């Protein structure tokens, strides 16, 4: 049976600290302004601001990156085959093939999971960080690849590895013995925008 890699994120424990986001930045040597994952506060006024009225307030965090949809519309529309879906369920964005047309950004139901890298890529350091051999190119679309280069070495994605709250779990949903299968069997969960029919591979435990 083929694999279906999924990410399961426990919103009960996520504190929105963005350690995942920074670990991703480091691992993938992301240029300034480019984030492949980031934690969104579902409040009313930007990050770390709750919704409601004092003192009846609530605040939820939602780590948001490419959802690696099973029916990924981005794969369908990419004219240069830069966006592909692997047999394992990874939606891969290859910057060497990306022509920068941004069709994928338009069809993606999840605004904000892709970034269009600017004409000039800026870095604070004169050497690459992390272990992803990716070469970032200006004017291309950037997004999370589920750390395909790490999976190939038997490692977990950098964000999963780094989360200090252990909110993220990654694995094969087609393997009934995997931790992700166990979590989805036993915990209430949801996917985003199911009505769009994309069948995301990111599940949120609630």
């Amino acid at each position, binding site marked *: 049976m083929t694999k279906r890699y999924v990410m399961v994120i426990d919103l009960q424990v996520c504190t929105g600290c963005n350690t995942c986001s920074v670990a991703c930045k480091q691992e993938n040597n992301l240029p300034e302004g480019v984030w492949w994952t980031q934690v969104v506060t579902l409040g009313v006024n930007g990050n770390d601001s709750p919704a409601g009225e004092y003192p009846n307030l609530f605040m939820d965090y939602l780590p948001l990156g490419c959802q690696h949809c099973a029916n990924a519309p981005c794969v369908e529309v990419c004219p240069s085959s830069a966006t592909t879906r692997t047999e394992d369920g990874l939606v891969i964005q290859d910057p060497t093939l990306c022509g920068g047309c941004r069709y994928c950004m338009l069809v993606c139901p999840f605004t904000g*999971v892709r970034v269009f890298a600017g004409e000039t890529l800026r870095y604070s350091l004169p050497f690459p960080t992390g272990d992803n051999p990716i070469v970032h190119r200006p004017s291309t679309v950037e997004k999370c690849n589920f750390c395909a*280069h790490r999976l190939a070495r038997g490692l977990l994605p950098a964000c999963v590895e780094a989360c200090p709250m252990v909110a993220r779990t990654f694995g094969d949903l087609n393997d009934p013995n995997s931790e992700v299968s166990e979590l989805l069997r036993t915990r209430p969960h949801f996917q985003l925008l199911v009505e769009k029919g994309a069948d995301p591979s990111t599940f949120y435990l609630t």
Partner: protein
Amino acid sequence: MAASTMQQQSPIQILFIVHQPGLRDSLAQVLGGFGSPLRWTSANTPADVSQVLEAQLDLILADPFALDQGDSMAYYKALRYRAGATPLIALLPADTPDYRDAAVQMGANYTLAWSEIATELLPAMERLLGRKRLINGMSKHIENAADLGAPVGASAFNAANLSLAERSRREIERLSEHLSPPSRAADMQPANDLSSSHTAPVSQAVFLRGLALSAAASISSDTARIIRTACNLNCGSHFCGLNVTVRGGEVVKIEAADFPDPRYRRLCMKGISHVQMQAHPDRLLTPLKRKGKRGEGEWEPISWERALDEIAEKMRALRAEFGAESLVFLPYSGQLSALNGMNGVYLRLAAALGASGTSLREYGIDSAIPSGIEDTLGAGSGYQSNHFTDLPNSRLLLIWGGNPAQSHMNWWNFFLEAKRAGARMVTIDPLFSLTASKSDEWLPIRPGTDLFLALAMLRLIIENNWMDRDFVLRHTVAPLLVREDNGEFLKVRDAYRNAWIGRSQNGDQARCLVWDAEREKALSSQEAKSPVLSGQYVVAGISCRTAFDLLCDMLKPYTPELASTKTGLETGQILRLAREYAATKPARIVTLYGIDRWNHGATFGRLAAMLAAFTGNLGVRGGGVGVGASPGSTLSASEFPTPNGRRHRPINPLLLPEQIISEKPYPIKSVFVAFGNWINQLPDQNRLLREALPELDLLVVADHFMTETARYADYVLPAATFFEREDMVKGPGPYVQYQPALVAPRGECRSDFEIAAELAKRLGCGDVFEKNPREYLAEILASGADTRHIALDDLRAQGVMERRLPPEWEVAHRDLQFNTPSGRVEFYVERLLPFGRALPGYEAPLEAFAENELAARYPLVCLMEHSRYRVHSTFSNAPWLRELETEPRAAIHPSEAERRGIAEGDLVRVYNERGQVVLRAHLNQAVPPGAVYLSQGWQSVDFQDGHTQSLTHARGNPANALGPNSSFSDVLVEIEKAEGRLP
């Protein structure tokens, strides 16, 4: 979570897709217990289901086998799609993994065996209905993505305020006009106009596409090494183990390192950002000497030899004229390694010179609550409470004035563990903090009124006899007799002037007496078989009352009604809280340092410790009280700073500016700052800059960056980072970790050890640095009872080793021996008689209280928070973190903003009589009306003008056992739009 669902007006609409009538009946029965109105509909055919889906629906409860469908998998996938955000709970006839997996594949949001319905259904429903909020929030986020400050997606769509669909349509039109996407990938050429030198050592030919290729190509085939070290910053969590990848002589990646106890394997976004700090383009690389006036920023690079010679020469001259104590060494907590850290080389140097240095007892910061705990629970216990690893043993966590999920983020897992084990978490905080948002209950108290709540709780616990009477009688001063004439405890020497009772031992004369009901006389507490708690007695002509009675008298006015008026909490909430705290055992009070930043911080510490004592929550697993550090503290590690038993002359940093100005009790002429940002972290910055600094003949700063303190220095010395020199740290928890020098120092940077040793040589005390660092590390290990068994070579090889701590080290006051004058928990403190504060009655804030006249002009309480993206001022220049928190902001409630005509993002001036700061406003419902929240640690370059520390004052409470302490939050300000007011 359920609260929002509860508040819904219309009933929750549920669809049953259930065949068996019995199942339907039991569902109906269980749902009858749901806290809000429900309405359910049944559907037995696909056509019925389809019809119901047309209407508003909140939840689907489905037995996947109920509909007679050939391919139920396909049917449910379609249903899932149709139902959209409506959660679906699958009800399975049997509890097998296969059924559950199939249900998940069908799109069920939760799977439930029929047998679990009675217990599991309602909690799952609450969680899943709560997710509607998330989904709505998510849709809103997507709509607003272009407006968000966060950079994600911002560059994709610039047209603000258009719907996503509209933006998409326009974008597609625009793109189709201007872009003709390359039709074939082969047309693409590798870009050769990269603006930086980021060409990874992988050819385009090898890196064809994603997954396949990165596996084959290693970015680091040549020289990458992974080396273990430990972070040594003072963040609140302390000493995460780091696995550092070094490639080409540079730190290129940081990951969490393993520990014997896997719960300690952790790191944070700041720890990762050391990668950017280490090779930061702004690192200081060479010694600098000031040209021009102090603070002008004109520098001349000079050699180490010249810098050290000149500094030593000036110090020698000052020593000759004003004495060695006029030289102050001010190591702060920015580094906490054994040698290169707060309690390390510079205090050793100061001791050898007879110079002054940071007091290890009176920090002037973080010492108010510990002062109160020290008075109550004994000397040396101020910073002690049960270790964080003991949290999961608590059944109730009362988090009072702290935000550990943010400020102690890598201990938060232990709080979560407690929650998972069933502990209830209650947070008391004016701010709807991250911790409050994760708690079971949040009590939004008015800033500065915590004493009223604590006093009322104590009164309720005593009045209702919810107290642990046995503990109170045996372990607190409650039964001790207090003389009515002078307020002191009645001692043996007072009552039996010409005799002695018991065996004659030194100290017997000072023993305190209780009234023994059986023998009807005053006896030492050791002798008394039946001590009384209440009463008035005359002993040797001296009229006495029990300390307990005095306490009860003192507490009388502090009714829950008064507390309610003052705190803004409801009387019922206060009653419930007191009752719950007294009834739930074990319970722990986690204070951290929020209320420490007030004039009454020590009194709060006393009351918190008393609450723990009166409920018997001391010395037990899962109990305890305090700021959270552990027994076997990680900070003051060794005798290294006291060569040959000599000690530096201690100075409370809070009082230092005053001493520089007044020259009392002795003049200070030179200040050497290391591991810290003195001007940034001390209150009342304008006075420090304008009045104290000009009186200094010499200011030297050793640091990695040109901090705002370094900018005022005469000499700036480039210090090595913890990646560049050898050292070790004691912690976290039971561990000790080695820090190897894993890259060469950048530029001409030198370790603080070298800097101190070179200065010592020039100042005639080179002998205290004659050994090399490794020898001193071995000595420190050998001299500690907990580390004596550890050989440095073993530690170097293993990276982390376990200290030998006494059993039950996680529990403070385990032996119930209290190091107070009476040996008991002292809610009545003789030391405080001259201050009129033997009992911890109400003590008003210095400035920030409603009745203060000053509030007419400065009506807002100014509270100073710690951001999770910085450790004090460290990381304020870390680029990744600056993308997440771009600039300082003043957070205020929208109602306060509206009243002043302030909109989100406006530049505002926050000011009072002492100073001002100009920064952007952030409208935030988390902030109570009547307050403004600022974040500490930003530097002057980050503000439009002024500084947060110019608003604060240096008035500390003189009664504190650990010396006066900064009351950063006991401050009033006003805020106004800054337009046209910028200088």
